[in-house]
C-alpha cells in the first residue's frame, strides 16, 4: 500500500467526535478551566478550523484529543469518540497505537519538536517502526516516500540531514512527513505555519490541503489567522476563554458572522491595503481563566452587552441552519 492511495472512509460518518470536553489546570490560585465544555466533529476529507487568540484553549483541546495534556492539566470530563470508541477509556498502551497511527499531530515550532541529535530519516523511520513491522530496507523506502510526498527537495540526501541543517520550511515538511508516515486518518495541525515566512507558509498550507484531499484525512487546523481559516477550512469553530462561541461552515461564518467576538476579530484584521486610518479595536484583554466574569465571558469587551449578559451564561444555539453561536443578543 502506498501513502498516496485514497482511503475508503465514508465522508458522511463522523471520524472523530469531541463531546463536552473539560480540561482543567489546577494551580495554586485556583482551577483554570482551559477547555470548558467543547464539542465538535471531524469528518473524512474535511478540515475544521479552530480559531482564537492565545490562551483561548485551542492548543489544550488538541493535546486533549491525543491525551498529551501534562499535569497540572487534567481531562476532567467529556468524551473523545474516534470511530465510535471513547479514547478517554483506553489504556495508555492502547493509546500509543492511536497516536501517530490513527491520529497524528504537527506542531508549531519544528525546531523544538524534532530531536537535534538524530537525522530526519532516522526520526521518521522510528515513527514508522513504532507502528509497522518493516525491515530496514522497507522502512527506508517508506521514509523516502514520505519525504517525497511532502515535496522535500532531494529526499535521499535530506533523509541524512540533521534538523539544524534544514531551513524552517524544510523542517516543517519533515515534521509533516513524520506525521503522515503511518497514514493517519486524522491530522491535527497546531499553528503549523506560524513560525514560517509568508511565502513558505503558502507552500506548506497548499501542501497540507493537497495531502488531505489525496489521502482523505480529516484535519483539525488550529490557527489565530482568520485568512488561513477562510482559505483552508471547510468549517470553523471560534474559541474564546475555553469555549466555542461560534460554529458553522466557513462561508456562513465569514459572510454572516453572528457572535460579537467573531465580528470584532474580523474587523481587527482589516483589509490588506485598505484605507481605514484607525482599526476597529476591541477594548481590554482576554479575561484570566481564574477570574472569569459572571454570565457571558466576553461581556466586558462586548459592544452589544446588556445587563442580562451578566446573568445568563450563554450556550451554543442554532441561530441559522448549521450555524450556532453562544450569545443572547443574536
Amino acid at each position, binding site marked *: 500500500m502506498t501513502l498516496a492511495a485514497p482511503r475508503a472512509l465514508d465522508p458522511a460518518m463522523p471520524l472523530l467526535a469531541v463531546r463536552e470536553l473539560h480540561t482543567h489546570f489546577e494551580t495554586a490560585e485556583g482551577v483554570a478551566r482551559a477547555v470548558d465544555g467543547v464539542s465538535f466533529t471531524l469528518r473524512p476529507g474535511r478540515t475544521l478550523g479552530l480559531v482564537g487568540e492565545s490562551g483561548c484553549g485551542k492548543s489544550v483541546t488538541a493535546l486533549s484529543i491525543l491525551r498529551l495534556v501534562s499535569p497540572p492539566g487534567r481531562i476532567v470530563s467529556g468524551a473523545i469518540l474516534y470511530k465510535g470508541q471513547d479514547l478517554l477509556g483506553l489504556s495508555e498502551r492502547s493509546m500509543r497505537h492511536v497516536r501517530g497511527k490513527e491520529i497524528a499531530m504537527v506542531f508549531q515550532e519544528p525546531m523544538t519538536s524534532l530531536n537535534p541529535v538524530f537525522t530526519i530519516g532516522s526520526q521518521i523511520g522510528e515513527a514508522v517502526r513504532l507502528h509497522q513491522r518493516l525491515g530496514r530496507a522497507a522502512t527506508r523506502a517508506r521514509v523516502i516516500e514520505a519525504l517525497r510526498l511532502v515535496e522535500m527537495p532531494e529526499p535521499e540526501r535530506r533523509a541524512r540531514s540533521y534538523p539544524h541543517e534544514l531551513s524552517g*520550511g524544510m523542517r516543517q515538511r519533515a515534521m509533516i512527513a513524520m506525521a503522515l508516515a503511518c497514514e493517519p486518518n486524522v491530522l491535527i495541525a497546531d499553528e503549523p505555519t506560524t513560525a514560517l515566512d509568508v511565502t513558505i507558509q503558502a507552500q506548506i498550507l497548499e501542501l497540507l490541503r493537497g495531502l488531505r484531499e489525496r489521502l482523505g484525512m480529516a484535519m483539525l487546523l488550529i490557527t489565530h489567522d482568520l485568512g488561513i481559516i477562510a482559505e483552508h477550512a471547510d468549517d470553523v469553530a471560534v474559541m474564546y476563554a475555553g469555549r466555542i462561541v461560534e460554529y458553522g461552515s466557513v462561508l456562513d461564518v465569514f459572510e454572516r458572522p453572528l457572535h460579537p467576538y467573531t465580528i470584532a476579530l474580523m474587523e481587527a484584521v482589516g483589509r490588506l491595503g*485598505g*484605507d481605514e486610518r484607525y*482599526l476597529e479595536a476591541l477594548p481590554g484583554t482576554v479575561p484570566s481563566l481564574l477570574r472569569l466574569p459572571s454570565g457571558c465571558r466576553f461581556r466586558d469587551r462586548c459592544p452589544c452587552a446588556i445587563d442580562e449578559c451578566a446573568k445568563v451564561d450563554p450556550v451554543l444555539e442554532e441561530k441559522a441552519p448549521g450555524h450556532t453561536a453562544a450569545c443572547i443578543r443574536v
Partner: protein
Amino acid sequence: MSDVVSPNALGSAASHVVAPPVPAGAPLVEVRGLRKEYPIGGGFLGRARATVHAVAGVDLTVRTGETLGIVGESGSGKSTLGRCILRLTEPTAGSVSFGGRDVLALSGRDLRAMRRDMQIVFQDPYASLNPRMRIGAIVAEGIEIHGLARGAAKRARVHELLEKVGLSPEHYDRYPHEFSGGQRQRVGIARALAVGPRFIVADEPVSALDVSIQAQVLNLLRRLQDEMRLAYLFISHDLRVVAHVSHRVAVMYLGKIVEQAPVAELYRNPRHPYTRALLSAVPVPDPRRRPDRIRLGGDVPSPVNPPTGCTFHPRCPYVEDRCRRDVPPLIEGADEHAVACHVFPAPPR
C-alpha cells in the same frame, strides 16, 4: 535649583542641541549606500572564511511625521537596517544623516544627545523590559540619563507618559510580569517617548501580540504620530500590519530594497515579482476569493553567497538571461514608485 532642567525639554524638538528642527514632510532621516557585513567562520583569532551581507546597499528617506514601512521575510536584513540607522549596530559602509547631521560621525556626548531624537520599540515586550525594575523606573531611565527632569517633575512626567500610552499612573510601581503583552508594549512605547524623540524605529512592535491587541497598539502608534508629528521606520514581516500604518513601504529581499512606493500604489500596482508573490501569499479572510497565487519555489538563499545579478533570480518565475548577470538598480518612475527589476521596471514618469 529647580527640579526641571528645561521647561520645554520634553516633547519639543526645538530644544534639542544636535539637529535643527525639520518642517513636516521634509526629509528627516536620510540613508545612503548603507551596508552591514558580518564575517563568519574562522572563530577566535582565525581569519573569516566568509561574509554575511546582511544589508547590501540601502538608500532610503524618512520624512517628518511619516511612517516608512519596511517589509521582508526573515533574513532580509530589515532589523539590521533599523539597528544600523540608530547605531545600535555599527554599519560597515554608507551614510546616515538626521536633520542634516551625519549620525555616523558622532561620538560620545554628541551621539548620546542624538539618541534623544532617535528611539526604538522592540518586538518582544517580554524580553525588552527588565523584570526587576518597576514600570516607573523603566520609563524614567531615559529622562534620568539625559538629565531632563528630577524628583517630582520626573514622576509627573512619567505619569503623563503612562496616560499618553493608555496606561494609568497607578501602574508606576508595578513590575513587568504583572502586565499583559499589549500593556508591556505600551510601556515600551512610553519608554521610547520619554526623551521626546522625533524618530522611532519600531521593530516588529505587534508581532508578539494577538490580533485584537495588535489593533489597539497600532492605533496608539497612529495617534501618537498625529499628536507629536513622529516619524516611524516600521519594520514588519506582516504585510497587512504594514499596510495599515505606513505612508510609504519599502520591500526588502536579501539585504536590498527591491521595491518602494506610497502604500496605496504599492498594494494596488506591485511591480517586482517578489512583491507580487509576497502580497499574493497573504491569506485573505474571504472564503469566496481564491487568490491568484504566485508560487515561489524554494527558500530565501543564504546571504553568505547571494546569487549573482538580481538576487531574486533563482526563485523568479520571469527570469531572463540578464537577470542572472546584471544587478538591477532601484530606479524611481512615476508616482514615487521605485523598482529594482529588469523585466518589470517602475512605471514611466
